[in-house]
């Protein structure tokens, strides 16, 4: 057993519930819903079953030190991860000193670059750029031909007007971005951070769908515990918007999204009998600074919570459904508890995967009940913020850490008729939390779990 402990010393968040960790946490505790109707423009392209999503607020990236020039070469997913990293470093009390005249490269004061790593999770990486570049590639020449035809051919006024209107609707970037490849690759989310902050330890992006963020944090925890690193910039990020709703359509056509409720605010209801899917979220970035405990103490860092275990298993069952028996999820949880030296009768709080799909919630409740009974408090952060896929596990780890710090956690949105007798919170509750479990299950069958504890300092 390693003698190196791993603690969380800083956090940064941009998500539909706020553009800082403080704002996000406040929104969770004040039961703020992120849900609204999907953009009307999407309805031109397909007939969707679900009409709900959780959009991001407008973000001024310049305020996070991301210049107009940077923005030309970054997919929104990288902009999100850079912005949240800037917040997290500041929260951790780490000063980033500019070292070039463009103020785009920074040295992290007091840290050895080779001992700092960047490990992020993302499900789809730079998909927004993929779609935009592909659209330009596909249609640019046809558009030119249409313009030429309009200029040269004789036609009646109505036909001309219709064609002009059609051209106007073919709204896509005018140029195929020369940086497309570096923008779409999944590792851009971590590489851009490593370059900006001169972190020369292991740098990678982990992509296992909804469990990406948890897995990234787990890898970061492992690299610190085994002595490779002293500090990591870790977490999860996702950006799922496109101008036509094509990404949304993928989830919608697979019948995974909440649908047919009187309003968006009633649609997202994990663990409730009336649930019928999850709330699609535009995206988020949740960054946590993980640090070796002694290293944190020596630099006077504020310790938020301790990570005591990481475990992962794989269902080997289905590409889009959890195995109904929940056996691998159970094995993962028991492994994590053993690693953390926490008994099933001792765990105080579970931040659930809690998507709101029929399959997930039933399986998850069954597993929790047979391991823990009704002892630990259980909530789903997704019930407020929606499902941010690759960022979700990291957002939920933030909630687990903040719940430990503040000894309070949020309730479950729209929990009118719980499907289980486990202790699903209906509203926020003050709790005595010494240890917490946060876990994620992903399309494909990947299961990842972290155990957090109140820091012993």
């Amino acid at each position, binding site marked *: 057993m390693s003698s190196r402990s791993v603690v969380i010393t800083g956090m940064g968040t941009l998500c539909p519930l706020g553009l800082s960790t403080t704002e996000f946490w406040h929104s969770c505790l004040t039961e703020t819903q992120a849900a609204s109707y999907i953009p009307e423009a999407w309805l031109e392209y397909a007939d969707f079953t679900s009409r709900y999503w959780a959009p991001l607020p407008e973000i001024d990236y310049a305020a996070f030190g991301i*210049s*107009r*020039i940077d923005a*030309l*070469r970054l997919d929104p997913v990288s902009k999100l991860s850079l912005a949240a990293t800037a917040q997290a470093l500041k929260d951790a009390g780490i000063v980033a000193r500019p070292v*070039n*005249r*463009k*103020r785009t490269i920074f040295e992290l004061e007091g840290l050895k670059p080779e001992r700092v790593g960047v490990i992020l999770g993302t499900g789809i990486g730079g998909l927004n750029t993929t779609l935009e570049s592909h659209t330009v590639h596909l249609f640019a020449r046809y558009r030119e031909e249409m313009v030429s035809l309009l200029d040269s051919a004789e036609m009646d006024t109505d036909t001309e007007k219709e064609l002009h209107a059609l051209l106007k609707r073919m709204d896509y970037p*005018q*140029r195929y*971005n*020369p*940086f497309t490849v570096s923008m779409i690759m999944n590792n851009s989310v971590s590489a851009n951070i490593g370059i900006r902050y001169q972190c020369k330890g292991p740098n990678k992006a982990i992509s296992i769908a909804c469990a990406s963020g948890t897995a990234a944090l787990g890898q970061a925890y492992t690299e610190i515990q085994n002595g490779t690193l002293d500090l990591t910039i870790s977490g999860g990020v996702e950006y799922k918007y496109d101008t036509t709703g094509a990404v949304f359509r993928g989830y919608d056509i697979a019948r995974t999204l909440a649908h047919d409720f009187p309003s968006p605010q009633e649609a997202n209801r994990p663990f409730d009998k009336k649930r019928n899917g999850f709330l699609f979220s535009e995206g988020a970035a949740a960054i946590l600074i993980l640090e070796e405990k002694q290293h944190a103490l020596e630099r006077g860092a504020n310790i938020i919570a301790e990570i005591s275990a990481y475990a992962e298993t794989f269902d080997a069952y289905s590409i889009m459904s959890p195995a109904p028996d929940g056996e691998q999820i159970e094995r993962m949880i028991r492994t994590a508890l053993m690693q953390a030296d926490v008994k099933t009768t001792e765990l105080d709080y579970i931040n659930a995967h809690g998507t709101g799909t029929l399959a997930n919630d039933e399986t998850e409740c069954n597993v929790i009940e047979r391991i823990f009974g009704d002892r630990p408090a259980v909530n789903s952060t997704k019930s407020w913020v929606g499902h941010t896929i690759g960022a979700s596990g990291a957002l939920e780890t933030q909630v687990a850490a903040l719940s430990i710090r503040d000894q309070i956690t949020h309730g479950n949105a729209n929990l009118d008729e719980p499907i289980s007798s486990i202790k699903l919170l209906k509203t926020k509750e003050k709790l005595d939390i010494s240890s917490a479990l946060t876990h994620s299950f992903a399309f494909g069958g990947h299961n990842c779990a972290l155990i957090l504890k109140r820091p012993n300092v």
Partner: protein
Amino acid sequence: MNQTTYTSEEIRQKVYSVVFEVSGIEKSKLENDLSISDDIAPSSLDRVTLFMALEDEFSTSVAEEELQDIKTLGDLINFVENKAEANAA
């Protein structure tokens, strides 16, 4: 080029702003004989970024073959002015 008509001085100042953003060279130090490849955009990626930023600033597109004779900041400003005139005509 977008429909707005700029004066020569406005074009110069806008180009200076873009060059500053791309290279970090203070505007007070920008002179016509500064070399694009040695001073302003030493790497090929910097050069691509410079022309992308100009496209963005002036809402226009620049073809690769138009860039071959642009060696200095002065060449760059002349190029942008000529493009503005051609688009206005």
